[in-house]
């Protein structure tokens, strides 16, 4: 009788302990960002007095400041431009390439697949000097389209991997039926297969967008003019200008991160699934 009681109590205690530990850990994961978001609505004075308190009133001054001095709208537009073209190209190339790799046996099939996936392991910093000098010599350095090439190349592997595994699960009978009905190769890929791949295309599209929005190293190396600068570069420049004005810095960080936060709120399940798929499947 007593031993059952003790067991019950132990179960009850471990239940509380496990949940408590997990809640504490989750808070440490997210609190710094929440702290930054609400602090960005405080005035510098209010923040200096008490760094932890919630803002007494919502002050948009920091945001006005940020938008006035650093052109966050322009930087965001540049990043959006790269992302729209980059994501579209990544998806089209990935669909076509995965279709060939998933459906046909041909010479060099393994080689092509291996090459693309190999790009995931290469430290991009090994490529910066040659990319810089090649881009420079063919007039691709510091243009509106400069970053799109590395972004497609390094966004492609993950997308290709996920799309290819997804396509392997689509029945081949579909292609055969399409062929009998007189569908050409292009039509089969783009009107039969692509719509069926929609779930994975949404996932990979989001992942590629996040990758391009967050990217910093290529932008730092291959761009020079302010008019082409991406949000990451813009943020870095802004942080330098406001090195002791923390609330304005925070407003800048929030502005640069807002799209990612919104996307994560809506699509977190898909993002988690997509980003861990490679490791989970081995």
């Amino acid at each position: 009788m007593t031993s059952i009681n003790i067991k019950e109590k132990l179960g009850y205690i471990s239940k509380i302990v496990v949940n408590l530990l997990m809640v504490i850990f989750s808070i440490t994961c997210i609190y710094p960002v929440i702290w930054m978001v609400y602090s960005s609505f405080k005035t510098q004075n209010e923040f200096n007095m008490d760094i932890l308190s919630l803002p007494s009133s919502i002050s948009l001054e920091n945001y006005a400041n940020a938008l006035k001095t650093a052109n966050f709208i322009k930087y965001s537009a540049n990043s959006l431009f790269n992302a729209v073209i980059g994501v579209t190209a990544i998806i089209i190339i990935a669909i076509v390439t995965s279709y060939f790799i998933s459906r046909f046996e041909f010479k060099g099939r393994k080689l092509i697949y291996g090459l693309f996936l190999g790009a995931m392991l290469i430290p991009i910093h090994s490529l910066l000097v040659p990319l810089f000098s090649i881009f420079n010599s063919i007039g691709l350095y510091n243009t509106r389209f400069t970053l799109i090439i590395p972004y497609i190349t390094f966004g492609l592997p993950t997308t290709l991997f996920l799309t290819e595994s997804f396509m392997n699960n689509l029945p081949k009978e579909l292609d055969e039926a399409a062929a009998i009905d007189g569908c050409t190769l292009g039509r089969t890929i783009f009107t039969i297969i692509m719509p069926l791949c929609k779930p994975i295309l949404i996932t990979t599209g989001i992942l590629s967008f996040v990758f391009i929005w967050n990217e910093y190293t290529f932008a730092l190396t291959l761009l020079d003019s302010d008019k082409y600068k991406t949000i990451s570069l813009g943020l870095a420049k802004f942080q330098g200008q406001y090195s002791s004005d923390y609330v304005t810095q925070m407003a800048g960080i929030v502005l640069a991160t807002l799209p990612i936060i919104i996307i994560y709120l809506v699509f977190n399940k898909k993002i988690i699934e997509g980003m861990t798929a490679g490791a989970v499947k081995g």
Partner: protein
Amino acid sequence: MKTSTTLKPRKYQYFLYLGPGVLLYIFAVIIPILWALRYSFYNWSGGAKMDFVGLGNYIEIFKDPLFWKSLSNNLIVVGICLVGQVGIAIIIATLLSSKYIKGRQIHRSVVFFPTVLSAIVIGFIWVIMYNKDYGLLNWFLNTIGLKSLIYPWLDDPKKVIYSVSYPLIWQYIGYYAIILLAGMSNISSEVLESCEIDGAIGWRKLVYIIYPLLKPTIAICAMMSIAGNMKIFDNIMAMTNGGPGSSSTVLAIYAYKQSFTFFRFGYGSAVSIVMLLVSVVIISITKFSARGDNND
């Protein structure tokens, strides 16, 4: 005849459909790697003048104390992050897999969140977190009475390399925890049930059954953590720019500065090649030792 191309494409169709991707890859990855290799044998500052120096750059690298400093800094980051990221992730995954846990889905989404933030945003957040007067960290340590642990986080040349590693741990615990959690749920319920019948429950089940079966997943996480932190760059650039002095300079920052601050493109390329080799060697060792474990 025409319909059959859908199931058996002609040769030109292979070129048409696969060509763009392959060409892009050759242009942006293969050629640059070969070029980096070529540049590494030259003394070159970007202009027309390129002096062939053979292995000169490589010899200089091995004589440069700053290179060794960057390498050892990089290995410190890799070591701390390996233990921190994967080690804590195992604990978190264990907690999350507990049948007692409430709101598992919300926890999953929350702990994963830092992973999607950009490296430089993480860097800037932590610069503020580390701030002497206005940072959350010092406030927290003050509040719980651990004032003695406070030091100038990003300004102490001896300790800065540790300070720049903690944000990396913070960012990626959730990522590895979710992967490990998936690995745990892949362990078949039959195995778990039969071990429960044999009396392995609670901690014993974890230590003798779950962790050993999780080894391949842990190895994958370890490999990704090592590979990721060998090429770490943005986070540290955002936090310290490699400083104070060179005390938080890692290989990628060293290569970047040699190339784009001092315009020593040949030398910078040689550093890049060394970096590539070091990464390959370390990944191979991890892969090899992980495989050895599995055969036992």
